[in-house]
Each structure stands twice: as C-alpha cells, then as structure tokens.
C-alpha cells in the first residue's frame, strides 16, 4: 500500500470515524492503567477501589473482543464490496489490516485476561466463602493481589476469551451479520467471567443473532431475490410508504378538529423511518424500563451505582427514541404555514415530538408488559433482579416505571426543544449529527445539578429517598422547562433561517438514517 495515511483513514472510517478509533486507543490505555493500579496497589476484598479493576476488566474485554468483531467486519466488507474485491492486492491489504487489528486486540487481551481472572477470583470468594474451587478460605481483611489469583483462573479466562473470539469469528465471518448487532454479545461476554452462572449467555446471543439475521436476510428483507420475484410490480410498490407509515398517515388524515392539526402535520411531514431503527429504539427503551427503574434508596454503593446508571441511561435511551428525524423542508414551505418562517421551528418540534412520543409509548407498553411478565414468573433472574430486589409492591410495579416513563418523555421533549431551537445547527450536517451526542452529554450534567439542588433543599427527597420522584421531577418538568426557555430565546433565528441549507442537510441526514437502518436490518435499501 503506497499511502499508509489513507489506509489508516479508511480503516478508521470503516469503524465509524476518527473518534471511534480514538475511543478504542483510549480504552486500551485505560485497560493498562487499571492493570497497573491492580499490580501496584494490593486491595482487600471489600476495597471500594476494586470497582476500578472490575470496570477495567470489562473495558479491556470489550476492547479486545471489538477487535475480533472488527476483523469479521473487514472480511465481510472486503468480500462484498465490488470495488475492493476486484482490486489487485486487496486481499493482501485486508490481511494486513486484520493482522494489525488482531495485534492491537492481543495487546489489550493481556490486561483483559489478568483483570478478569482477578475479578472472577474475588467473585468466587464473595459468593461462597469457605467453599472455594481452589485455595483456602479467605480472610476478608487481608490484602489481595494478583499473586493470590491462581494460575487456573488466568487459564480459564484466557480460554473463555479465546473461545468466545473463535465463536465470534465463526458466527460473524460467515453470516454477514452487521457490525452493530455484534456489540450485544460482545458486551455480554465482557460482563460474564467464568465465575458467573450466565457465562453461556454471549455464546447463545451470538448464535441467536446469526440465526435471526439469516432468517431476516433469506425470507424477510428486501434484497435481490425479492426484487426479482416481484420484478413487474416493484416500481409502483416502491413508491408506496411502508404499511405502518401508510396506516398512520390514513389515521392522522382522519383526525378531526384543532386537536388533529398536529397529527395531520406530522403525518404529512414525517418521512418513513426505517423499521430496523424504529424497532431497535423501541426495544432499547423497553429494556431500559424492564431493567433499571427501582425505588431503592441510595444507601449502599451498588444502589448508588444503579441509580447513577438509571439516570445516565435515561438520556441515552431518550436520545435514541427522540433522535430528530429528517424532514422535507421544501414540502413544508408549500404549506399554508410556509410563508411564516418564524414558525418552522415549532412545526419541526411538533413533528419530532409526535414521533418520539409514539416510540416512547410503544417502548413503555412493551417494557411494562415484559416487566410484569418477568416479575410474575420470577424468571429470568437477571431481568427482574434489580427492579424487584426490594420486594414486588404496587410502587415497584406501577409507580416507579410510570415515573421513569414521565422522565424519559420529558427528556425526549427537551431534546426536541433544543433540536428545533436553532436553524443554524440544522443547516449543517455536522450540527445534525453531533447535536444528539452533545445533548446526551450536556443534559445529564444539567440534570445532576438539578438533582443535587433538590436533594439538598427538599427534606423529603434528601439522600436519594423517593429517587423516582426526583427523577420524574427533574427530567419530566425542570429540564423541559429549561429547554423551553432556551428554545424561546433562540426562536428569533428562524426569521432569517436559510431553508435551502436546512433542506440540503436534512436530505443528507435522511440518506444517512436510511442507510443506517438498512445496514441494521441487513436489507439493500
């Protein structure tokens, strides 16, 4: 390869851009830092800093396994992309690229194995003190270092990582499953050491994904076979919106009166979003509601972490559910409202709000049903554990999830308000891309500030008591109020908004979303 810089840029872009590569490198560095901490500072079994080692083990495992996943992705791309496949020496360059990725993975696999072995050993010591698989019963006050981790533990973790890597290669290399779907088993593999009872879960997840993907590609997705089979009818069918969109449009068109205005506007302007992305965001939201909401009081460290994750993940989930969809701006200009440019922001907000509301409510319905089912069956343990760890009461069943739904809706509303506030942001494709990410970082900071203020000024909510009330109050009322104020302040910008620029960036955004959805569902869009 003559130009190494271009090859590196190509490789970075293949996995999502420079920032993904930078994150990967940071993760490698952090993994080694965590290992260094563990090597230099022996800790007792109950040392709070042990959490850094556990997080380091997860991070290192994810980083190492993502490398394996990246190799399968590179192989898939190189065998499918005609331009690459038909170029001479491409096979050699692909092998070199895969080799480089595997080397980096191997570099991070060292801390991964060591930290996982450490975590697995302490896990075993915590769980069955006095009945160890190897060694003597521990003294919990004695310091525990890497020297105390038996050689079997290292071997077991190395074997588990290697076996999962091989399984990952086997499943994803052949199946052609998309890169995004591989994250889930990789994440699970990182959380499950050989000491956990669910060590088989990532293997099962891999197998399920590959089977589902095969079924999807073979029978359900709109790829070349379907195209050929329906060749004479494909043109008129293509121009029709998907059935769900068509149904919603018909329903909205019949919405009567003033209340129906928003529905009609949304139906007219909302472009059909890919079913893959919509379904995934709804499932994501539902899983959040199944797993995280709890009314536990923040007293023990584990509960504090759970609450922290619940808050942060609420923003991740809401960002996915309320991601601004592309809108046909020029179509909007042809409507009666078209001559009032200052109102465009409001129209954008109405359409986005309606879309995100629908998705949140679907997620709520699915999540509450699953939560009830898991709670009633008492299975599987890992799904109903955190949510019902304090007993299954009416509060746990109904009030807490509802409070979280209110919170997520509030965050979704705030995202819509911030997104529609400034036409300058919407006029740039970078602005449209970075906006959800920026909001995902800024809004939680704002929320934690508000939470801190409330808990230090309202006695009834102090020290994490009634945490779900604080959650609903902050995210369902205060943050949307702040967002509303900000959007009112920026509204003047819409009077001089450049509609062609917004239209152009929306077009690119729409293409990007469509492609993302197609990549996810494995269809040829």
């Amino acid at each position, binding site marked *: 390869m003559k130009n190494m810089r271009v090859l590196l840029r190509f490789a970075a*872009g293949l996995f999502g851009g420079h920032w993904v590569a930078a994150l990967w490198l940071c993760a490698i560095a952090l993994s080694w830092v965590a290992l260094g901490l563990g090597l230099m500072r022996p800790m007792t079994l109950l040392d709070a800093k042990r959490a850094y080692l556990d997080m380091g083990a997860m991070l290192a495992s994810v980083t190492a396994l993502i490398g394996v996943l990246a190799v399968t992705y590179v192989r898939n791309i190189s065998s499918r992309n005609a331009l690459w496949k038909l170029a001479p020496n491409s096979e050699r360059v692909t092998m070199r690229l895969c080799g480089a990725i595997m080397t980096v993975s191997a570099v991070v696999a060292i801390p991964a194995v060591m930290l996982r072995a450490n975590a697995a050993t302490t896990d075993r010591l915590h769980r069955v003190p006095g009945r160890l698989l190897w060694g003597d019963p521990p003294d919990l006050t004695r310091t525990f270092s890497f020297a105390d981790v038996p050689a079997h533990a290292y071997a077991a973790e190395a074997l588990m990582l290697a076996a999962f890597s091989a399984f990952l290669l086997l499943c994803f290399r052949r199946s052609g499953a998309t890169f995004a779907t591989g994250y889930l088993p990789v994440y699970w593999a990182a959380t499950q050491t050989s000491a956990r009872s669910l060590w088989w879960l990532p293997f099962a997840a891999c197998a399920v994904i590959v089977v589902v993907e095969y079924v999807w590609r073979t029978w359900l997705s709109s790829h070349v076979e379907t195209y050929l089979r329906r060749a004479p009818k494909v043109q008129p069918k293509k121009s029709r919106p998907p059935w769900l969109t068509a149904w919603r449009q018909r329903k909205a068109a019949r919405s009567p009166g003033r209340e129906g205005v928003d529905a009609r506007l949304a139906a007219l302007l909302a472009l059909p979003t890919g079913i893959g992305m919509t379904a995934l965001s709804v499932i994501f939201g539902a899983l959040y509601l199944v797993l995280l909401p709890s009314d536990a009081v923040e007293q023990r460290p584990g509960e504090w972490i759970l609450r922290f994750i619940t808050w942060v993940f609420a923003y991740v989930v809401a960002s996915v559910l309320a991601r601004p969809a592309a809108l046909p701006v020029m179509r909007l200009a042809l409507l009666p409202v078209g001559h009032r440019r200052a109102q465009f922001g409001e129209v954008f907000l109405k359409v986005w709000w309606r879309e995100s509301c629908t998705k949140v409510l679907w997620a709520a319905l699915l999540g509450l049903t699953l939560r009830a089912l898991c709670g009633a069956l008492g299975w599987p343990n890992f799904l109903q554990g955190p949510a019902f760890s304090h007993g299954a009461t009416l509060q746990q069943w109904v009030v807490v999830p509802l409070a979280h739904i209110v919170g997520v809706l509030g965050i979704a509303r705030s995202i819509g308000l911030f997104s529609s506030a400034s036409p300058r942001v919407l006029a740039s494709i970078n602005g449209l891309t970075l906006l959800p990410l920026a909001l995902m970082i800024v809004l939680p900071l704002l929320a934690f500030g508000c939470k801190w203020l409330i808990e230090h000024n309202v006695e009834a909510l102090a020290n994490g008591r009634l945490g779900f009330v604080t959650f609903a109050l902050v995210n369902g009322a205060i943050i949307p109020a702040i967002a509303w104020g900000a959007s009112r302040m920026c509204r003047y910008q819409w009077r001089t908004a450049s509609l062609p620029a917004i239209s152009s960036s929306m077009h690119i955004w729409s293409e990007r979303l469509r492609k993302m959805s197609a990549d996810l569902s494995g269809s040829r869009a």
Partner: protein
Amino acid sequence: MNDTPAVSVEHLSLRYGGVTALDDVSLSVERGSVLAVVGRNGAGKSSLLQCMLGLIVPQSGNSQLLGCPSLDLTDDVKARLGYVSQSPELFEWLRVGEQISLIGGLYPNWSERRARALCARFSIADDMKVRALSLGEKQRLAIVIALAHQPDLLVFDEPVASLDPVGRRDFLRAFFEHEARDGAPVTVVISSHLLEDLERIATHVLFLEGGRIQLLGARDEISERVRLAVTAHPIAEQRGILKRRQIAADQWQHVVDTRTVANDALPPNTALSALGLGDLFEALNT
C-alpha cells in the same frame, strides 16, 4: 497476441429462490470487441455481469476473464480489469482524493496524473466528501476509478443511468479515448438502456430475456440478418421467427432471422425492413 477470449461464459445458471436469473447462458467475447448487453428490467443483465466478474457464485456453469476463472481472479488479471456497477459502492467517509488514492494504491500501474485528469474532465472536486456527492457524481467517480489504471477489460453495468447529458457525453468521450496501458486491445462489456449510445459504440450485441439469450452476435451481422416483416396473417412459430405480434386487425409484425428462417415461411413479396438497435429492442420486447 493471446488468442484466449477476453470473456468466456459457459452454461451459466443462476437462481434466486424460485426465480431464474440466468438460464444456461454461454457466450464468448473476443479481445477488442465491445459487447452491449441489452434487456428489460429483471432480464438478468446485472446478474450476468456479476457472475462474469465472480461477484456472485452461480449454481452451475463457469466463466473466465482473460483466461482466468472468475471465482479465483489473480492480482494480475484484477489489475487489467475495470468495473463500474449500477450503484457504485464507494467508501462514503473518505474524500474524493482519498478514495482515489486508496483504490489507486492497490493497483501496480495506477496513474495518479491520469486519475486527476479524468476527475477534471468529469468535474469532480478532489476535496469533496464522497457522501456529499450526488448519485451522478458518484457514478462519475466510479468511472474515473475504473479507467485510471488503463485496463484492457472494462465491465460497465448501466454506467450512465444516473448521468446528465453532459456526463453522458463526457463518458462517451473518455470511452473513445481510452487506451490500455500496454497498447493491448480494449474489450468492453456494457449494459445500458440508452440504446442510441450503445449503437455508437457496440461491435456485438446480446439481447437477454428472462435470463436466457434471445439474440447474440456482431451488430452489423444482426442488422443485416434480423429484419422486420409485416404480414396480413400470422406466420406459424418456427425457427427463424424470433417474435410475433399483432399490431392491427389484419397486420402481424414478425422479427425474422433471415439466415435461419425457412425459404417458404414468409409469404411471397413480403417486405423486410431493417431495424436499428432501438427498434429491434422494442420489437423483441413488446
């Protein structure tokens, strides 16, 4: 000079589920010829080209490019091959210049100067992100990449479908000016619906219908031997009658292969009119 054909396809069959995309297709393209592949949507043109290049594995049959099996192309053959697909699969996150350098870096005989000149001809800005290009611009970039290393075998799958008239003109000009690096004769396989363009460049024509070869031969020979006959009564289906259609109450139109049709098959004094590529396509497919 090497006598092996540039492209050789033998008994190629391809099925997608229950649909036959290619049905026992055999053909051979001599070096230096330009084969136009013509057919309606779903006739199997893209499938044929992709099987030919080894991008799709057929159920049966085999194909060779420059004497090398398509499913196992060597780097040497790949270096002599240029391909433009219907929807170019470019790397969207790169800039135009980077995309050219990336692919160009893989070719031993890549000419950076020629690539830049082609970019200028096709009016593609070097520093633009590929994802910001329109479909037509992407198609033009794919053409630049296919031509810059001066291959002697070009495979184009509807290369001008998304091009404006100026783009089409530039493509044809680049096409006519294209020369292989070592002066070898350039072989081209091109599928397109723009028959007037094909009429200008094709030396051979292949008509596909439902995955089967409807008509194949040198263009001059086809225009010489395939004629249109209009009669008052239908002529019975037989060898040499390629297509029969009623166009009025007492008028039947027949596409006749004058070389193979029986002498007494046509009524005496039947006028046989010559057909252009467009007329022939229409007559065969309506």
